[in-house]
C-alpha cells in the first residue's frame, strides 16, 4: 500500500507533538531515515507542505498574504490587519507582504483559501469584458 504525502505529514505532526523539547530534532532525524528507507525522499517537498497545513490547522494559524503595487501606508495596513484578525476567528494570523508592480494598483489579500482581489489590473480586465459585449 502506497503511503501518501498527507499520511507522512500526519505521522510527522503527531510524533513531533508527542516529543518534548530537545527530542524534536531526534524525531525529525528518524523521520528522514524512514523516508530514505521507503525510497520516498523525492516526496519531501509535498510532505513539508502537508505538514505545514496540518500544523496551521491544529494550532489555529491562518496564513495571510497582502500583495500591493506600492508599499502600503501604516494605517491601511492596520485596517487590513484588523480585517484579517476578524476573519481568522480568534486564531493567529501569519502575515506576509509582497510588492508586485504588475497589479498596477490596489491590493490583493489572500488568507486561507480565500482571496479578495481588489487590484486595478483585475478591475480593468472586468471592465474590458463588460464593454466588449
Amino acid at each position, binding site marked *: 500500500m502506497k503511503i501518501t504525502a498527507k499520511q507522512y505529514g500526519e505521522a510527522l505532526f503527531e510524533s513531533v507533538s508527542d516529543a518534548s523539547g530537545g527530542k524534536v530534532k531526534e524525531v525529525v532525524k528518524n523521520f528522514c531515515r524512514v523516508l530514505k528507507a521507503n525510497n520516498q525522499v523525492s516526496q519531501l517537498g509535498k510532505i513539508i507542505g502537508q505538514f505545514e497545513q496540518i500544523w496551521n490547522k491544529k494550532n489555529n494559524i491562518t496564513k495571510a498574504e497582502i500583495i500591493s503595487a506600492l508599499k502600503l501606508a501604516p494605517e491601511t495596513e492596520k485596517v487590513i490587519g484588523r480585517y484579517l484578525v476578524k476573519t481568522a476567528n480568534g486564531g493567529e494570523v501569519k502575515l506576509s507582504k509582497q510588492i508586485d508592480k504588475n497589479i498596477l494598483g490596489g491590493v490583493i489579500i489572500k488568507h*486561507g483559501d480565500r*482571496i*479578495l482581489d481588489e487590484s486595478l489590473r483585475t478591475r480593468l480586465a*472586468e471592465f474590458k469584458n*463588460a464593454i466588449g*459585449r
Partner: protein
Amino acid sequence: MNKTKDFIVEQLKEQISGFKAEAGEKTFGRVTEVGDGIARVSGLSDAMMSEMLEFKIAGGSAFGVVLNLEEDSVGAIILGDASSIKEGDEVIALKRILEVPVGDELVGRVVNPLGKALDGKGDLKTKKSYPVEKIAPGVIARESVKQPVQTGIKAIDAMIPIGRGQRELIIGDRQIGKTAIAIDTIINQKGQRMKCIYVAIGQKESKVASIVARLEKFGAMKYTTVVMAGASDPAPLLYIAPYAGCAMAEYFLDKGEDVLIIYDDLSKHAVSYREVSLLLRRPPGREAFPGDVFYLHSRLLERACKLNKDYGGGSITALPLIETQAGDVSAYIPTNVISITDGQIYLESDLFYKGNRPAINAGLSVSRVGNKAQIKAMKKVAGRMRLEAAQYRELEAFAQFGSDLDKETREKLERGRRMIEVLKQDQYVPMPVGQQVIIFFALISGFLDNVPVEKVRDFEASLLEYVQDVNSDLIKEIEKTGELTEAEEKKLQKIIKDYKDTLDYLESDKVKSS
C-alpha cells in the same frame, strides 16, 4: 458626424455607469496535477458541483468545470486549451454554473460548444446566455405530442412518424445512412417554422464541413445552427457539446418556437464521458463506463419536450444517433438510449447493401407517440400500409420455403414488393407530405399492382408530375387541410386511372379493377 460621436459617447457613458465592479471574497486554490484535459486542484474548500473555475495563466485565463469533490481536492475538466496550465497555478471558483451564449445570432452559424464561432464569419454578439445544465420541464409545463415533424422521408413519415417534442433514436452500424436521415430531415424543415440544431460530437471536421456545405446549398443554414466538437477536440468539450446545444435550443423553446435538435452521435459522447470519468479516477463499471452513463443521457434527452400553451407552446424534438458495432443493439449504450427515447429508427446494413435506402428495418423500428401527430390524410393511408408491411414481412419469410402459394398470398407478396420499392428514396430529396399521401394512396388502392417492380420508381415520379400538371390544387389542398376527403379520393382515383392509360409498360395479364 458630430451626432454619431455624441451617440457613441452617450452609449459609453451608459455602459460605464452600468458597470458594477463586484468586490467580494472568492475561494482560491492551486493546481496540483494537470493533464489530459483534467486538473486536480487543492484548496477551494467551498467549491460546488459543476461550478465554473478560472485558471489564472500567463497572459489570461482558462476555464474549467468542477466534476469531482473530494476530501481535500477538487477534480475539474478544462474547457479548451489546457496546454498552458501548470502545476501551482492559481484557480478561482467563480460561483456560477457554466453558461453558453444563446440567441437568434446563432442561427446560420457554426460554433463550438462554448459558443465561439468556428465559421470565420466574425464574433457572435449575443446578449443572453443560458446554463448548460438545466432541469427538464416538469409535468405541469408539458403537453402530449400532437404536431408532426415532417422528415420528408417516406418510410419514416408513413410508418414511424415523429411528433414535435418527441425523442426518436436513430440507430445502426457505421456508414449506413444515419446522418443522412438527420440531414434530410433538416433540409425538409424549410418553411415548417422549425429551428434546427445539429450537434456534431467527435465527428471528423471534414465531414462536418461537407454537411454544412450541403445545408447551405439547400438553403437550410437559414434556420440551422451547427455545434461542433470535432474529433481533435479534448474529451471535456465533447462531453459538454450536447448540453450546450440543448441550452441553445431552450432559448428558442422559451420564445415558443419549435426546435429540432440532432445529437450526432451519443456513442462518441458516452466514450468521451468515459474518458473524463476514468481520468478523474471514478470507478469503471460495465464496458468501463462509469455508473452514471444512464443519467448522462437521460437528463439530456429529458430536456426534449412539448410545452403547453401556458408555457409558450414551444417544443424541442430530439433525434439522438447511436452507432452500433456489427448490429449489436444489446450493448450497454444502445440499450440505455433505446429505453430512454420514445422509439427508434433501426437501420440495417443488410438492407443498405441490398439497395433498400434508407435502410430502415420497419419491423424493429417503432415510434411510441408519433402516430398521434400524423395528419389525418396520412393516418388514413399509413394505417393500411403498416398492416400490409407487417403481413408482407411474415409471408416473405414463409414464402421462401415453397413456391406453391395461393392467389391471395401471391398478391400480398407482389404488393409488398412494390411497397418496398415505393419506400426507397434518394438522399437529399425529401418529399412533401402531400405527395407522399398521393403515392401511398395509389399503392394501397392497388394501382401499382400491375406496374412492374423495376418500373415502380419511374411510375411514382411521373405520376406526381402528372398530378401536379392536371390538378395542382389537390396536393396543396391535402397539405392545407391535412385531410383526404371522399371527394378528393374519387378525384385522385380518376387522375391515377387517366395517367395509367397513357402508360405502355403495364403488366396486362393481371389487370386489376380497383
